[in-house]
């Protein structure tokens, strides 16, 4: 009997050691690290993920690129959001976009793709090159946005694969170093795209060669203005922007409002847009540019028509961004310019439309599905008219005549009412041209996240001059401070100059 007992005890204990493989369980419903970048199929799935990821920055892009400008601060129906940006109340205490607005999470995933895609076998090398063109272009876009927002930022081009606690501190790279990386990535992107100027799956909601080209134009103007690149950078920008116009299937639509129509997604003017659809797990920020039905039902539109329940806004619709009077005055200064009503629906307290109460977006009004308005327009990040007006900027900077480009835009804006003798622009001095281009862009791109960058590209003096809440001496506010949390996690970071600590 004793032997049996000993046997049992030994068996029990030994069985543990021999059963290690029982504990090796394979996941069924998820993918683990190292199992993902397997083949061309997964690379494409990864590329879709990177685009969904980029879309999640949409609201931040609009806030950074436009809400900081003179475009907001008017009246509306609910308390305004982002008042610190609108009123230029920028301090370390309330530093916006903590954690670098989450951009490094996106960059990490891009870096992961850039590292792994080259090692994957594709049946067609064109497919691989296209994906590489996309990921390099997207990385350049992220760094460009960060450079414009914060100046120098930490430069990371490799995916983080493990954590070494001794090398976690990383200082900001200089603006020049970031700009160099952006330019390298743009070149890498264009080289990878090569002659593939088509849109992926014929959808302009994926990054493309055209997107990299317009980004290149944008970047080189900035580098010319802010980083001493001068004429040669303007020249580089100009040729890149000119190349955008040569891409087949990229042109201005004849009617401004058609560019934004829900039924007209993926039109020829769009170069790169974020896709939105019902139940896609993402929310377009433009619901903040609408209003609750009940708040506006007693109001009238500019035609004197009672609003009632005509918009069918859902309960999440809310009115948080209110166009400034400057924005509306400029946009509606000429009733023949179709862009005003295509951009905003102004609401009044009286049928005579003299008591302005607020405005909701018309550009991104989405569509009504089963009685509920869904804000699911695709939202352009770049469209062709942008390329045209950027081209006008380069020409002006190179002391050339920008009026043909300006007039292309005006002609389309006025539609059949266009009269070149009245509405046409005639080349003037460089600074007057700059003002004209700024104003044209102001009208053309409201709600599209452009105005603040336009002002800064024109020169920081414009950003100060155009904004009632910025005074000379506030130049340091053009670049944002970082939060104490960001420094706390990474003490090598130095606060943006001018903000103290």
């Amino acid at each position, binding site marked *: *009997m004793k032997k049996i*007992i000993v046997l049992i*005890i030994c068996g*029990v204990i030994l*069985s*543990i050691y021999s*059963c*290690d493989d029982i*504990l090796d*369980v394979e*996941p*069924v*419903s*998820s993918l*683990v*690290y*190292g199992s993902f970048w397997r083949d061309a199929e997964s690379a494409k799935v*990864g590329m*879709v*993920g990177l*685009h*969904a*990821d980029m*879309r999640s920055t949409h609201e931040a892009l609009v806030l950074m690129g436009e809400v900081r400008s003179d475009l907001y601060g008017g*009246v509306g129906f609910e*308390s305004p959001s982002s008042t610190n940006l609108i*009123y*230029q*109340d920028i301090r370390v*205490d*309330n530093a916006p976009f903590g954690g670098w607005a989450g951009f*490094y*999470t996106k960059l*990490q995933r891009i870096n992961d793709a850039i590292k792994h895609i080259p090692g994957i076998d594709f049946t067609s090398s064109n497919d691989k090159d296209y994906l590489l063109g996309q990921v390099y272009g997207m990385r350049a876009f992220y760094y460009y946005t960060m450079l414009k927002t914060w100046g120098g930022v*930490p430069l990371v081009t490799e995916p*983080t*694969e*493990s*954590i070494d606690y*001794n090398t*976690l501190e*990383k200082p900001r790279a200089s603006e020049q170093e970031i700009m160099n990386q952006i330019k390298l990535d743009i070149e890498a992107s264009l080289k990878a795209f090569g002659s593939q100027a088509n849109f992926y799956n014929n959808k302009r*909601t*994926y990054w493309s060669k055209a997107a990299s080209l317009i980004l290149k134009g944008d970047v080189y103007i900035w580098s010319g203005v802010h980083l001493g690149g001068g004429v040669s950078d303007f020249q580089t920008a100009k040729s890149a922007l000119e190349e955008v116009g040569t891409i087949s299937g990229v042109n201005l639509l004849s009617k401004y409002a058609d560019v934004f129509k829900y039924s007209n997604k993926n039109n020829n003017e769009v170069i790169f847009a974020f896709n939105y*659809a019902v*139940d*896609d*797990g*993402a929310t377009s920020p433009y619901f903040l540019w609408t209003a*609750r039905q*009940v*708040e506006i039902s007693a109001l009238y539109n500019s035609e004197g028509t009672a609003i009632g*329940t005509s918009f069918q806004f*859902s*309960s999440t619709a809310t009115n948080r961004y209110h166009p400034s009077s400057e924005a509306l005055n400029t946009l509606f200064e000429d009733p023949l310019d179709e862009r005003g009503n295509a951009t905003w629906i102004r609401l009044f307290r009286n049928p005579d439309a003299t008591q302005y109460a607020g405005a909701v977006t018309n550009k991104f009004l989405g569509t009504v599905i*089963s*009685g509920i308005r869904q804000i699911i327009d695709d939202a352009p990040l770049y469209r062709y008219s942008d390329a045209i007006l950027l081209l006008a900027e380069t020409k002006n900077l190179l002391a050339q005549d920008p009026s043909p480009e300006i007039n292309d835009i005006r002609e389309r804006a006025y539609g059949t009412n266009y009269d070149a003798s009245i509405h046409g622009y005639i080349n003037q001095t460089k600074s007057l041209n700059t003002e004209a281009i700024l104003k044209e862009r102001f009208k053309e791109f409201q709600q599209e996240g452009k105005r603040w960058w336009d002002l800064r590209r024109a020169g920081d003096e414009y950003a100060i001059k155009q904004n009632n809440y910025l005074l000379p001496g506030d130049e340091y506010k053009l670049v944002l401070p970082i939060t*104490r949390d960001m420094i706390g*996690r*990474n003490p090598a970071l130095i606060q943006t100059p001018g903000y103290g600590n």
Partner: protein
Amino acid sequence: MKLTIALTLACMFAAHAGSYSQGSKLNLSIPEASIVQVLKEIESQSGFYFFYNEEELKQQNSVALNVENKSIQQVLDLVLQNTGLTYRMIDRYILISKNEQAGQLPQQPKTVSGKVTDSSSVPLPGVSVVIKGTTTGTITDATGSYSLNHVPGDATLIFSFVGMRMEEVVVGGQPIISVVLEEETIGIEEVVAIGYGSLEKNRMTTSVSKVDVKRLENIPLSNVATALAGAIPGLRVQNTTGQPGATPTIVLRGGTSWQGGGTPLVLIDGIIGSFDAVSSQDIESIEVLKDAASTSIYGARAANGVIMITTKKGRKGDARISYSYTFGINEARKGYDYLNAEDYIRINRLGWQDYVELTGRTNFNTYIVNPAIGWTATGNIDNSIYTTQYLTSENEFLLDQGWKKMEDPLYGKTIAGMNFNNQYIIFQDNKMSELPYKTGNVNEHHLSVTGGGDKATYAAGIGYLKDEGTIHGSSYERLSGNINADYRITDNVKVSSIMNFTSSSRLNTYIGEGTIAQRIMGQPPTSRLYNSDGSINPGLSEGFGNPLYYADKFKQENLDQRLRTSLALEWNILSNLKLGVKGSYYNINSVDEAFNKAFMSGGNLNVTRQASAIYTRNQTFTGNAILDYFVTFKENHSIRAMIGSEYYTRNYFRFGASTKYSPTDLIPTLNVGSEASGVPYSLKNMDRMLSAFGRLNYDYKLKYLVQLNFRYDGSSKLADNKWGFFPGVSAGWNAHKEVFFKNAKLSKYVSSLKPRISYGVNGNVDDLTEFGVYGEYGLSPIYQSEKGYYLTSLPTLGLKWESSTTFDMGVDLGLFSDEVNLTAEYFIRDVKNKISNYDLPYWTGFSNIRTNIGTLRNKGFEVEINANIINHTGDGFKWNIGVIAHTAKNYVVKLPDNGLPNNRQGGTQIYNPKSGQVEWVGGLQEGKRVGLDLVYGHVQETLYNAQEQLDEDANVYDAYHFAENARERFLGNVKWLDVDKNDSIDYRDRVIIGRYTPQWMGGVTTSLSYKGFELYVKTDYAIGHTIHNENRARSLGQVQGSQNIITEVLDAWRPDHTDTDVPRFVFVDAFKDNGVRGINDRTNTRLLEKADYLCIREVTFSYNLPQKIIGKHLNSLKVYTSGTNLFYFTKYSGFAPEAGGTDGGRYPLPVSITFGVNVNF
């Protein structure tokens, strides 16, 4: 693997079946053992029960026995020869006593008879009744009755029964003496479950607390764990919601996470389970294992302690049927008082005027004409949301219909270019804050049967409970069934099976609990409840709407079905060697259904009619094999050994789908949805564990006790370091058994003294997801109709077991013949290689990573005192008081080196006036207390009451004001404490106020009983912590623009009311005076409230009807009435102080009054 071995062996040795009766034959082979052990061995082999005075038997020499095929009488004759002992048999009960014929003969011998019952009036058969000082006695029969002849008039009867407290009653000439034996809660024979076995309490060396389950019987409990509040030293039980059925937050000894969390492992009959859907009436005992020496037998899963629930098992004897019914009413607890409509309109309109005039901002002008604001008097017409209107000749008639009238406080003014020409405002005054609440009923039925014979015993129970909550929508319904049966196949093989099934259905509040307690209660009193046609006006939207309209629009139901079943085989290989093999299966099927009817939202009819159904299945299987051995050698050395192994596997499956655009409100299921909403999905997950464990108990003369145990665990959740070894060691000393102790004078007062000490290790991987260590690619949202993947977490293959080592020192002290019992304990728990999130610099692309981060230390102290202040046996007059107090503090011992001072993680910077520096506080800092529960805020020094004060501070910059008004302030604004005196009110000026974690917690209970009546009062308390009352801050600040405000605002500063600390009311808290100061620091010390409380959790009054009233057909009848959550002694102004933390609006626990009856047949 090991399971197979054990099963095979068990089958090979399965012996012939046999049964014992008085004529049965015994086979015994005992080398050398004490008589007590021999008797126990006979008990274990036969149906006989022995009764004896252990002290008498202990004086005897040990015996050796080797008999075959002998009758019980023959065996006993053999065993008791030359011992001076004799025996007497009554049915299966054998009384062993001294063979003395001598003794003083009684003066007036009489016959005494009576009945012995337990505390729930159940008759106790087999109780030994002996005349004190003699061996004359008898044993009660099956009905608990006895009769004893020739009892002297001055004699004392001793009633004793295993597991019951011995009772002595002076006869005093009474012919009938009936006694109630109390279960022995503290005493030498008490047996405590310790994990894979049990142990007599006097052999225990570790920290285990037992719940007084008798206290669970009288009140209906939709969740048993709610009754643990304040009942166990070291266990913090927070009821965070009044939703019936919800499990409270339970944390043992400060918790093993940095945040102070960590749920104890809950085992039901040894199977991993939870408190959900456990019927309190099926519970036999609840034990809490606290120190690592006791929990290390559960190894890796038990770092947060173990709560062991044992369900009722069968007892031999005639079937006993018991039925109880409880009925009660739940009333909502009253919350804040809100303004009436007139005050509401006046205060808001003047607050808006202040806003415009003081800030110079016009951005809220629109509010004065926006009909979506409750205090606006324009735009509100027939059927609008709010009733506020200027009085006109057209609407004057409304005043006859109960509308009220007031003068517009803005009348005659011109503000921001707007003229206020209308003198009067009319409005309805509705008590919106009461609308979300209802009165709910609670009903519980429970029927149980136990019984059994020599070979089989059983216990079966069936119960039903329905508990209606106090907020619309919420309710809980539970049906439970439990069958436990044991069957003795042969004399040394027994099978036991457990079958437990519960089905519970929970309906949630119609909209989020926080939303109800904050936004819905805060609906403007000027809201229109009904339109002119009598239909209900919905209000603004579901989150800001009329409960009369919305209460039935959203349905959320959870159906939860649990099956717990196990089959165990127990084989006594030898008289002192036992093999147990057990397989358990636990399956939870859970279905969550939700449906939105068509509803008005923001003025638009939402007809999405979203319907969703989610099915979840969680299956666990546990198989184990355990070998038990005990031996006594040289009489005084006793050893018990156990070794075992276990396999655990869990498979999780989830399936869900949603539809939209159902054509009708009438069908809530997906079958009528016209299209999918989102993508249907299913997913699977699994994890496994493999373990070996063992335990060794040794004692010498029951004086010196030592326990060693270990567990070796492997988990599939880890990659490179799957295995962990978790040992425990403990020792104790029963000092009162020492001769010198007995001789000491002190022993007059100190009846027992047991110091003990323990050290052990636990593991933990609770914080890991199944495959998280491998790094995961997660799904992106849908983009252009496709789903993408991206890296969401880094692989951390080197991650290892988090291990907690606990050092525990305790003492069990009995005073005055154990009428007063005290247990005190001090512990230090070091959680090493803590698995938690390590904050990374953002450039890494990850805001944190799971890692073995450092060492957390819990230090604490616990004390429990139980005192019988009055303990009369005759009339049953008893008064008992129990006090529990415990405390635990958490420290950061070690963190990974990150180059920062103290390797700090997180935290915030505050100026320290002592050092004159801005210093990091809170977060995690090596060598300091864990600072994640630290509460800090700006100090309201006073209110500005004079222009001179304002002038003095004219240069003070306030970082929380609008930039253009940063140096502007007005009378009635808060004067903030400028801690660093630098004329700038900013983050540096915050002051540490306290902590969210209480310093002391516990409970006080008392019971008073007399002749069948009992009054029982239970309280729990927590002191020394702070609550951030966000609900109050948001209301006083009117941050939502149109909400009703708590009446505290009536005390706000006004030029004619300056003796107050409530700042001037300015619309949307424009000067951030009510606390929204900074994005993450919404705190003004005035709104950080002391949360100290003592709650009268339960008061029960019960009465056991005497036998002469209930007659012969009933064994007992008890009636009782209880009140629960009756009253809080607290200064906290909100609803629920026990939930702690940040109070953004909560579903309060109801005040319940219940009545019940319990009948035993």
